[in-house]
């Protein structure tokens, strides 16, 4: 007998059984668009988490000297701008400027004043965004002539600056963090409410199910945008509360999907077996029903996140969302739309970021659906 089993084991090559998730993963790996999206999303996610920490500027820091400068990979200030800017910075210093020149990133200013110069005039240079480390080199013996030097501060604005002179690159990074965070938070809320509600309705069935789903139908017919706006008005402009509210609105589809799944799962043998063994309803829901709806729920989740991000951007666009100085992609796009005439960069970069983010999320969602549910193709 032992020989027999050894022989048969040798003849049939050992086939490892593959779980649903493994097959799905294999299918997903073959989907170029979805895999690419995972990398793009990972990159954007890292940008959102760590970007604001390592960005050269704080997202709220204002540079009055650089308002709406165009995007550039070379540093500001431009060589032509240094001397006029130095002159205008020193205008209030009541100095007659004899010499203003720049050599090797160092600005040299010689000024005279008949009433004597105060050494504190260097502050006027420091106050400008262009110069740092202003210092007095020499004061003449009569105190009427001063020579100062200041380093030119080289700043990089990769995406340009906004209408207040804030670095757009840092603002896009922080808005990525806000948008992604809100997307996850609201989708999470929708997930919890939708799954619990749908699973309960489908599991209890009968009249309760009917009642619960009628409620969903009626909520569906509410003018959705109005509903959200009312919630925003009601909760005030608190970002976290607001997106819990958005999540509370977005759970309807999730509830329907989960209910449908639960209805069919409920008639399956393993659920009936669990019932026959005397397992309680709550335990059956937790052990058998909800885990089995996870595939569909994950697919829907990846499609829900872009929807929520879009909704947040839309609300922010209307001025109902995130408030200054914090920002989100919708706020940036709305400001860009207002300033597109003289600063198109302000519209282009946030719009591009949002588009890439949404594309990646949608492709990943489609890819996951194809992978987990091949018959739906």
């Amino acid at each position, binding site marked *: 007998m032992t020989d027999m089993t050894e022989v048969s084991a040798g003849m049939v090559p050992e086939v490892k059984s593959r779980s649903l998730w493994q097959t799905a993963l294999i299918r997903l790996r073959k989907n170029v668009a979805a895999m690419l999206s995972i990398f793009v999303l990972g990159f954007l996610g890292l940008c959102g988490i760590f970007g604001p920490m390592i960005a050269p500027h704080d997202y709220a820091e204002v540079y009055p000297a650089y308002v709406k400068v165009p995007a550039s990979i070379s540093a500001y200030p431009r060589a032509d701008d240094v001397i006029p800017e130095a002159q205008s910075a020193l205008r209030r210093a009541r100095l007659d400027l004899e010499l203003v020149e720049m050599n090797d990133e160092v600005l040299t200013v010689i000024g005279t004043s008949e009433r004597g110069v105060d050494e504190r005039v260097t502050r006027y240079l420091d106050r400008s965004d262009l110069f740092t480390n202003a210092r007095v080199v020499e004061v003449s013996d009569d105190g009427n002539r001063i020579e100062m030097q200041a380093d030119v501060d080289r700043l990089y604005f990769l995406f340009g600056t906004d209408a207040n002179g804030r670095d757009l690159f840092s603002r896009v990074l922080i808005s990525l963090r806000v948008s992604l965070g809100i997307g996850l938070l609201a989708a999470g809320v929708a997930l919890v409410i939708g799954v619990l509600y749908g699973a309960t309705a489908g599991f209890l069935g009968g009249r309760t199910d009917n009642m619960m789903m009628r409620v969903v139908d*009626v909520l569906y017919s509410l003018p959705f945008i109005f509903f959200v706006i*009312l919630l925003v*008005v009601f909760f005030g402009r608190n970002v976290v509360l607001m997106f819990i509210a958005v999540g509370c609105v977005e759970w309807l589809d999730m509830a329907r999907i989960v209910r449908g799944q639960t209805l069919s799962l409920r008639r399956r043998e393993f659920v009936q077996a669990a019932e026959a063994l005397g397992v309680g309803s709550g335990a059956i829901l937790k052990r058998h029903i909800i885990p089995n709806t996870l595939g569909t729920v994950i697919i829907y989740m990846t499609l829900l996140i872009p929807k929520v991000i879009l909704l947040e951007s839309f609300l922010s666009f209307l001025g109902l969302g995130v408030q200054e100085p914090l920002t989100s992609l*919708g706020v940036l796009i709305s400001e860009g739309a207002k300033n597109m005439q003289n600063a198109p960069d302000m*519209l282009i970069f946030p719009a591009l970021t949002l588009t890439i983010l949404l*594309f990646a999320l949608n492709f990943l969602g489609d890819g996951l659906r194809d992978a987990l549910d091949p018959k739906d193709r």
Partner: protein
Amino acid sequence: MLAYAIRRLLGAIPTLFFIITAAFFMMRLAPGGPFDQERALEATVMANLNATFGLDEPLWKQYVIYLGNLVQGDMGPSFVYRDLKVHQILAIGLPVSIKLGGMALALAMLVGSALGSIAALRQNSAVDYGVIAVATFGITIPNFVVAPVLLLVFALYFDIFPAGGLNGWQSYVLPVIALSLPQIAVVARLIRGAMIEALRSDHVRTARAYGLPTRMIVIKHALRAACLPAISYMGPAAAALLTGSIVVEQIFGIPGIGRYFVQGALNRDYTLVMGTVIVVALFVVIFNLIVDLLYAVLDPRVRYD
């Protein structure tokens, strides 16, 4: 069919009633009131204003009065636009929104079904992939990105179309495109999917066997079956289009009713918000009915008796 339509309309009354009730009480529970200003009004002035507009009554009584007036077709005066009644404001804005939305709707149906059909007929060709790419693009990119970019390119750089307002046909071009682009994308996707299925179905094969010309098969037999999913999508979409898009109206400076949602809710203009909510809800109900009736016309298997 008529009996069915009437039954459906009667069935919508409880839904409408619920929407009105929910909107009324949510609006009132929100903090603030229509007469709140930066500087608080004198108490007597406030009391007089509240008395004039009936806001001093208990909430349930206000609700009953509002419902009573509504049944008689009176939506009350606007709290913020003091000289106008709500139905007058809607009468000014709604035709503009309907005109714009109607054009966008027609464009979306025509272009969407044309693109979808072409893609389905040349499945897996370059044309097909092109249409899918355009559709994905249209679905992904939101209105409030498309509209400013359209403005930037066509109004500011090339100066072909005006940037805002409504003067002459040129000013309709950009808003209609911005409104219809996402709808074109969805319709093209739905029609493509359904068309591929329809082209494989028995009745189309029979028509082919009869030797009917391809164009006739596609337009008369396949498209008729293929447009069903698109039509059921277009019901709610049409209601949304015709009642005005907040974003597009704001960006292009169009005096439709879309903006009254936001402005009204922020100003606590109770009656105006209720008015817009009722209009939108009515459109949703009516268009869902139209969709169901169209189904019966297009699909001989569906009968409402």
